């Protein structure tokens, strides 16, 4: 199956269309909005569910060496990608060193919703993937922040690590919930899953739709406010970087000998950019960097690109290289 029919097929799922609906609503300035508490509730639900399912599937398949190696690879990718991103960004766009470093940090980290969207594409095509990829996602969240701060210190000595910030990053609610639910899934296994499957499995995709509706609304509002903030070079970066990231992920997956499904997920993790954890850390550590720039790029450009076009491309690539 070629990329285009894959993309077309991905495009007409309720998940992607819900995102498009939210985008549309925001762009025409409808007052459609999801209450803050409900959006946060849905994100807690999604994290709990994917963590739990990942843990259960690990319990089923057992722990092996690949797990450890893949975790390590994820950490290295997360730390290395910002350095590459920074160089590209400085070459392509007119962003200041500070803003470029802040943006770069986002691309080393990950978007868990893109990860979930990719796994649901895998599921609907019956391609298996390893449960521990959820743990890899968690491991890739933070290293990129360190790299971004290092880039800033190197270039002008600012951006020193505020006391307490490191603990805040490592113990932020999303990571704790994801890892915690993962462990609960691992411990309680299929037994536990049977009890709570009607909450964590059955309505999962529906909730994901509503969550993507919210993301569409917010991305759309960001685009309305952020237009003018990005030059053409920065925009190009928002498309080129995920493609490049996915290739790095693919290379790593081949080296690790990951099967198709897990390889796709590692590509998606490398290709996606953070829009929750990293922005929060940047506001504390680099308050002078302009949030409109990194949020518009990561949420307004790269996220939709990955969701709609990127995932099918990455899957076609991975199938071609790895087979399956």
């Amino acid at each position, binding site marked *: 199956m070629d990329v285009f029919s894959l993309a077309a097929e991905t495009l007409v799922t309720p998940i992607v269309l819900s995102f498009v609906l939210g985008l549309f609503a925001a762009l025409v300035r409808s007052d459609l909005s999801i209450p803050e508490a409900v959006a946060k509730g849905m994100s807690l639900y999604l994290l709990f569910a994917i963590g739990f399912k990942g843990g259960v599937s690990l319990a089923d398949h057992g722990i092996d060496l690949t797990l450890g190696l893949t975790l390590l690879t994820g950490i290295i990718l997360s730390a290395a990608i910002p350095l590459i991103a920074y160089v590209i960004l400085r070459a392509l766009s007119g962003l200041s060193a500070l803003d470029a470093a802040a943006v770069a940090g986002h691309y080393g980290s990950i978007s868990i919703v893109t990860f979930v969207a990719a796994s649901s594409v895998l599921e609907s095509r019956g391609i298996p993937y390893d449960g521990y990829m959820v743990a890899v996602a968690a491991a890739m969240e933070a290293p990129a922040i360190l790299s971004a701060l290092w880039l800033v210190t190197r270039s002008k000595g600012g951006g020193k690590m505020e006391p307490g910030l490191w603990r805040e990053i490592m113990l932020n609610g999303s990571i704790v919930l994801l890892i915690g639910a993962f462990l609960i899934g691992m411990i309680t296994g299929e037994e536990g899953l049977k009890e709570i499957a009607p909450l964590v499995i059955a309505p999962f995709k529906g909730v994901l739709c509503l969550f993507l509706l919210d993301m569409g609304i917010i991305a759309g509002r960001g685009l309305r406010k952020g237009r003018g903030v990005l030059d053409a070079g920065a925009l190009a970066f928002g498309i080129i970087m995920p493609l490049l990231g996915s290739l790095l992920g693919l290379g790593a997956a081949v080296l690790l000998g990951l099967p198709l499904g897990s390889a796709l997920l590692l590509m998606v993790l490398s290709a996606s950019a953070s829009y929750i954890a990293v922005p929060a850390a940047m*506001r504390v550590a680099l308050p002078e960097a302009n949030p409109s720039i990194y949020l518009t790029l990561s949420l307004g450009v790269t996220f939709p690109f990955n969701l709609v076009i990127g995932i099918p491309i990455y899957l076609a690539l991975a199938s071609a290289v790895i087979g399956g």
Partner: protein
Amino acid sequence: MQTHKAKRVVITIEKIMLSRLTDAIEKADVSGYSILPVFGGSGRSGPWTREDNIGRGDGMVQVICIIKPERLDTLLDSAFEVVDRHIGVVTISDCEVLRAERF
């Protein structure tokens, strides 16, 4: 009813900086404060509302301290250190309080 002169300091600041600010306030030996949620606003960095972010983390809050006038400078100094590099507004006004023994 007997009232006492006091100062009302209002610090509008990003929520992510809140715990750092309250730590600073407590270090300045200020006896009490209240935190009000801020729904949205506008400033040099443009307009925003609490519903603008996925993580919904970057909203702002208002920290209100009612303090004895003689404590004002210590508080402002401590608060300023936290607010300094960050966006935010600090205002001071006069007020009277009931039950001054309370602070």
